[in-house]
């Protein structure tokens, strides 16, 4: 209990001021590392201010003083009790080649589920189209309505084109693809907040269209065109959407918490860094896919042979599989200070 408030303030004020200055220093330069003596002093000051807050709180006569000490305690608490690395070094290349595949592998269970949902959706789309021609119009999103026509007719038009329809617009087209696809991926991940249901519906709807297109073009005898058209960018773009959905399912799983006794906050806290790395890697993949789709995928025979495009796509796929599953990634313990 405080007997004499003014005396209490006069006695304790140096402690408060010292802690406030130390916190200001930390705020100003968060990469700054304290020495052992500084840490010990910081901890002592935190304990003293906490104790002062406790005394003022029981006294409850001076709200301004209480709020001031609360604000000091809250700031110091965040620094003292935080055990996670701050991860201040900005190393986008390192994140992409190490942290992204590490997060992917760590959460491979969610990816396996995504692959299963994708297969089911593709098969559903394929069967629906094979059994009912009218299903195409119902399945295909409005923005792809130009693909509703006869595949053979479209291939003939593409192959007989005399001019480059993307002449002078390739960079524009690529940028629009990147922005749109990254936005779609972020939404796929974000919809995980609906306990994963939104992510599953979104993924299913996208992949049903893929199954529909595949059957439509194969049935029309245009398999080589289809592979040559889709593979160069699709082998990167489609896995990117799947990885974003992997993040969505991960988020949904953390929210549901089945089989995990940790509280909700702890579950969400544990997956946060992986979610960030997954969407970061997806963005990188989609930048590449946008460039390839604009500068290569839209060109067909006789400009470029289909087998060349398919070979390019195959190489990309092999490289992606190696990168995500087999590439040696740096041990995080060896790389201190990286989030």
């Amino acid at each position, binding site marked *: 209990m405080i007997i004499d*408030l003014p005396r209490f303030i006069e006695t304790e004020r140096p402690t408060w001021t010292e802690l406030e200055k130390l916190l200001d220093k930390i*705020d100003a330069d968060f990469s700054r590392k304290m020495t052992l003596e500084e840490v010990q002093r910081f901890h002592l000051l935190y304990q003293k201010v*906490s104790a002062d807050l*406790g005394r003022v709180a029981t006294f409850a006569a001076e709200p301004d003083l209480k*709020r001031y000490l609360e604000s000091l305690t809250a700031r110091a608490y965040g620094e003292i009790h935080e055990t*996670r690395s701050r991860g201040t070094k900005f190393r986008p290349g390192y994140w992409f080649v190490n942290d992204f595949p590490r997060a992917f592998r760590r959460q491979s269970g969610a990816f396996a589920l995504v692959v299963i949902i994708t297969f089911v959706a593709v098969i559903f789309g394929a069967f629906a189209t094979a059994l009912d021609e009218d299903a195409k119009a119902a399945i295909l999103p409005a923005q792809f309505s130009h693909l509703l026509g006869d595949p053979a007719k479209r291939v003939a038009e593409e192959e007989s084109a005399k001019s480059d329809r993307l002449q002078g617009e390739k960079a524009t087209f690529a940028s629009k693809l990147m922005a749109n696809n990254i936005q779609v991926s972020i*939404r796929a991940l974000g919809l995980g907040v609906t306990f994963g249901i939104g992510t599953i519906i979104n993924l299913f709807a996208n992949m049903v269209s893929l199954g529909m297109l595949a059957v439509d073009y194969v049935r029309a005898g245009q398999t080589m065109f289809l592979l040559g058209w889709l593979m160069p960018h699709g082998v990167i773009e489609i896995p990117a959407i799947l990885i974003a959905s992997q993040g969505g399912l991960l988020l949904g799983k953390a929210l549901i918490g089945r089989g995990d006794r940790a509280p909700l906050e702890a579950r969400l806290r544990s997956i*946060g*860094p992986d979610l960030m790395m997954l*969407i970061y890697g997806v963005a990188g993949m989609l930048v590449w896919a946008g460039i390839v789709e604009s500068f290569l995928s839209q060109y067909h025979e006789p400009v470029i042979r289909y087998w060349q495009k398919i070979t390019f796509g195959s190489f990309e796929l092999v490289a992606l599989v190696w990168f995500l599953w087999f590439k040696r990634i740096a041990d995080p313990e060896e790389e201190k200070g990286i989030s």
Partner: protein
Amino acid sequence: MSGYLRIKTPEGITFSFQLAGPLVRCLAWIVDFFTIMIISQGVGILARIAGIVSEDLAVAVATLGYFTVSIGYGIITEWAWRGQTLGKRLVGLRVVDVQGLRLQFHQIVLRNLLRFVDMIPAFYLVGGLACYFNRRAQRLGDLAANTIVVYNAQHHEPDLDQLLAGKFNSLRQFPHLEARLRQRVSAAEARLALQALVRRDELEPESRIKLFAELAAHFRAAVVFPPEAVESVPDEQYIRNVVDILFRTRGPEAKPEREPAGAAG
């Protein structure tokens, strides 16, 4: 709608954050929206410069520039300013970890990326509703990132000069009445008197006179001091004298020996 989030530390100390409701957050968002528009205009100028090389490149720079700014603005500003965008700074808000811990970069990224979901179907309807109904006023992005938006409390050491100043206290001439006053005044009454003094400058002049008149009448009735001690003493000074007695066991020059019976509760 706004409340408080109380956090109890392992040391047993409790502190609180005042949560920001959807309306005040909307104000901050409007500021940020216009800021993004202005930055995008800057990107547009860069795009026009790129247009000297190629019109195609100019449109690509503008498209990617606007996309990057709209996503990156919140991430970069909240990381650089420890949980604040320009809008939040102006409105006086801050993003903090839900457990009061240090805000992590991935939390900032997640809460900003999930805006795409909070914005569905338009004008942050989903996010606004989530924020309104959530007990911590979290939109979906905050929920996934374990963050809350709070009023940015900038508290400084309170000015207690009015308590520290040692003016003559006529009531102290009667120690037995001093003791009786301490005995009869409850802790709540003592706090009320102290608060009235601390916050006196926040009151309108008429309200201030009225409040101190009521308080003085109350304390004068509690213990009746001889007329020579209270005559010509204004109501506010009378309350100052009472507080001096209740919160200091002896005169200002003496060291305290024990807690006042009423005030220490």
